[in-house]
């Protein structure tokens, strides 16, 4: 007979689906691997160095910050800090000096996450907070990119070039290069193919809703497509916009961040469209060549509002209304 004194009393449900935060984070990490490998292929070991520094850096900041705050310090184990680190690296150039990586980690975890109370409480995507802060603080460093040298591990010779979006006229990269990733940019801005593979993984594993990437990319394609149609001088064609710069990584990996994007399907659609509109406007008419980061941060700020106004009606609600009307 079972020992009644050892029986646990707690609320239903008594079984759980087995999902955990760390399982989710690890899977997103895996989804980033194709892009990470592509970065190493095109930019050599320097890219690997940036990724390792940022990942370890973010985890270290997480541990130290918790210690300093006197909080139970094993939240680094949930994998969210490591993921933020890798995402941060994806937003840096292979030529980023080591201290940019460390400073970025501090900004991401400290300013972007812990200052708000840690995972779940941060209104903004931590990696993007760091990226934008660095962009403002070190505009020069953050906008010079290493030229890709496919398959040459050590051939990183600090040749710098413009990102495809800042380029004009003849310098425009070919669509094929953009798709494969043979262009300058930050680690995660290069290979659209690798990001699509990772994005497909996220969708298949149901780690992200399709609503965000679809509406984000769709809106950018629509607006830039129209702009190009009416004035080809103004901006490159839609496909170019979709493949170049940070749109792919932004739409699949940054805008979909659970903590900082809306929870409902309708909210996610609005969120994605908003990101798409702002990105397109900045790219076509703004002062910066790239607008993905800003657009996502801006929409992050609107997330609580979107959540509030997209609350649907519960099951059985319509009928109450009808009856009340009678």
């Amino acid at each position, binding site marked *: 007979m079972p020992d009644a004194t050892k029986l646990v*009393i707690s609320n*239903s449900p008594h079984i759980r689906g087995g999902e955990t935060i760390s399982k989710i984070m690890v899977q997103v990490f895996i989804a980033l691997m194709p892009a990470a490998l592509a970065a190493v292929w095109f930019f050599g070991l320097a890219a690997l160095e940036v990724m390792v520094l940022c990942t370890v850096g973010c985890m270290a900041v997480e541990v130290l910050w918790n210690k300093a705050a006197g909080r139970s310090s094993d939240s680094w184990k949930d994998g969210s800090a490591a993921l933020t680190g890798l995402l941060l690296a994806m937003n840096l150039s292979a030529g980023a000096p080591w201290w940019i990586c460390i400073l970025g980690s501090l900004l991401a975890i400290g300013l972007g996450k812990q200052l708000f109370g840690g995972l779940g409480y941060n209104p903004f995507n931590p990696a993007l907070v760091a990226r934008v802060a660095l962009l403002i603080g070190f505009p020069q460093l953050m906008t010079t990119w290493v030229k890709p040298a496919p398959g040459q591990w050590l051939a990183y010779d600090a040749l710098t070039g413009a990102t495809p979006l800042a380029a004009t006229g003849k310098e425009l990269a070919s669509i094929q290069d953009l798709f494969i990733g043979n262009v300058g940019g930050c680690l995660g801005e290069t290979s659209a193919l690798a990001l699509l593979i990772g994005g497909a993984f996220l969708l298949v594993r149901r780690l992200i809703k399709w609503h965000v990437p679809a509406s984000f990319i769709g809106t950018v394609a629509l607006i830039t497509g129209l702009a190009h149609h009416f004035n080809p001088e103004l901006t490159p064609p839609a496909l170019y916009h979709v493949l170049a710069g940070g749109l792919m990584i932004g739409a699949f990996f940054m805008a979909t961040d659970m903590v900082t994007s809306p929870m409902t399907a309708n909210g996610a659609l609005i969120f994605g469209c908003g990101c798409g509109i702002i990105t397109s406007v900045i790219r076509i008419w703004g002062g910066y060549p790239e607008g993905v980061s800003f657009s996502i941060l801006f929409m992050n700020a609107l997330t609580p509002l979107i959540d509030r106004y997209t609350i649907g009606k519960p*099951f059985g609600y319509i009928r109450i209304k009808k009856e009340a009307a009678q």
Partner: protein
Amino acid sequence: MSDNPRKFKGGVHPEDSKALSASKPVQTAPLLGKYTVIVHQNIGAPPEIVVKKGDLVKKGQLLAKASGFVSVPLHAPTSGTVTAIEKSPGPACVSVPSIEITADGKDEWGSPFEPIADWRNTDPAVLKQRVVDAGIVGMGGAGFPSHVKLSPTKPVDTLILNGAECEPYLTADHRLMLEQTEDVLLGAAILARILGLKTAVIGVEANKPDAISKLNAFASKYSVTVQKLRVNYPQGAEKQLIYALTGREVPIGGLPMDVGCVVQNVASAVAVVEAVVKGIPSIERITTVTGEPLVNPGNWRFRIGTPISKALELAGGVKYQPAKLLLGGPMMGFAQNSLDVTVMKNTSGILLIPVEQVSQYTSEPCIRCGRCVEACPMDILPATISQAVENERFDWAEQLNVAACIECGSCSYVCPSHRPLNQHFKRAKAEILAARRKQQKK
């Protein structure tokens, strides 16, 4: 009706673990020396005890009479002596009034009700009175008095028999439908007559194909339609079941009759047959005794008042210490800390959960993953309501329609942060109710 009814929104797919007991035919538990009958077994008012210590009782004799409309009588599970009327362990981990019957071993019937063989030509009011007198409740778990549902105050056009049995592990209804197929259908026909309806529909989850085909073989004889339901927890929840079968949405705070439906559990339907055709009150039920730690899980026909310890003994005892003992299924059942609690009319399962299965996680902050929102069959926002509750903002919780929550636990089941969502909602509802009472007093 199609063979593939509507899918209600949300729901989850836990491992069903029914294989442990699904193939085990129902065995009748041997007569015990003592039964402890918990007095309050139904939703609504507890019945009023009409026996006293020392009384001799016969099997089926009245122990307690209904104390109002939403109340049911209680009958002796066997013949013997009333040896105690005192508090004993109850299903909510607190002691509750019970009546102890020490059996005389003769298992002698008192004067049971007159069997109504010709129920087809009997006044529906007489049939309904029999349901009242027999003390029948919703045996699927809720314990709601069956006769109350049979007295709708609004026009009703659909009688639904609930054979979904969507809770993992439980197989009692499955076995019942398989072994007493015609009784289930006959019950549907009698219930239909009471409601003035010609037909009934019975919904069974697709994971019980043998029961479905057996029911189908006899269904037309009783003017019953059998509907295969999607396997999706909580398919057996009244509102979800009605939606799947009819497309009607029961309003929040409303009842099935608001959309012209009456839902009865299959076991309750069989209890109605016993009461009407054989004149036997509700004194026994089929219960699944199961769980990985048990040596020999299975399904048994127990008298009401059988201690859990006896049930576990019949199932061969345990191989190792379980982490939890539950009455009901793992999604909505109640954890117990005593083996002396006894089988009640709504005890669909006695379940032992091994330690690996139990959720012993610490709750972490919500990462807003939206999984709970997707899983919620009532289409409310568990994450947001839970945050309101954590901030003690019960007014927000109310605005966010926490009242619609059916406490199915799907949200807690999927939450990667292991938040006690369901628990929050129970608390919110209690607080809102308390606040409303206070206001009414003013």
